[in-house]
């Protein structure tokens, strides 16, 4: 079991460019969560999929951010027209059906310059 895999580990983008972050959940886990971690705001919930369907995106910024889960083996978080304030560590977690046994990936550290 390789755990939750997030790629890339580090990403540097120029202001205004697009960034796509990938998450591969643990095989058999049906729920995928995305979080953002910054020094100032701490850990913030962004969005959540269950059985590939979007369930709760209440934490997603209304503009420029989108998330998808096209199949059960991966989810993506896309940030369009990145801004310096998007710089953060983006964490993905997965859990079994209905369960609260969350397993976190190591995160993607995004730096927007």
């Amino acid at each position, binding site marked *: 079991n390789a755990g939750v895999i997030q790629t890339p580990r580090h990403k540097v983008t120029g202001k205004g460019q697009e960034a796509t972050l990938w998450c591969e959940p643990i095989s058999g886990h049906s729920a995928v969560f995305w979080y953002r971690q910054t020094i100032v705001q701490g850990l913030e919930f962004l969005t959540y999929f269950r059985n590939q369907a979007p369930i709760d995106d209440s934490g997603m910024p209304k503009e420029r951010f989108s998330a998808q889960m096209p199949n059960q083996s991966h989810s993506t978080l896309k940030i369009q027209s990145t801004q310096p304030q998007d710089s953060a560590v983006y964490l993905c*977690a997965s859990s079994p059906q209905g369960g609260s046994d969350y397993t976190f990936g190591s995160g993607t550290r995004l730096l927007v310059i």
Partner: protein
Amino acid sequence: AQSVTQPDARVTVSEGASLQLRCKYSSSVTPYLFWYVQYPRQGLQLLLKYYSGDPVVQGVNGFEAEFSKSNSSFHLRKASVHWSDSAVYFCAVSMKRGNYAQGLTFGLGTRVSVFP
């Protein structure tokens, strides 16, 4: 909506001393409660969790936590810390809707430094 407060941003302890990290939550119903640890440049690792039953929960590496419904608290403690316990500790809660757990709400974390 629920919230989590960790009142201590930093705690410094001597190796071998005991440790207590405080956590208070605000929620209309008792949520699921968690403590996670984060080492530098790593993701979050679960220390322990509480759903119901015995209010004292045992976790990994000698950690335990005690739930208090009357105080809306879930404090973490360890009897004797090691230098390797230096990390950031997060308290978190999750609500259940129907048969499914929702996303986590985290406190801001407590940075623990253990010195010889």
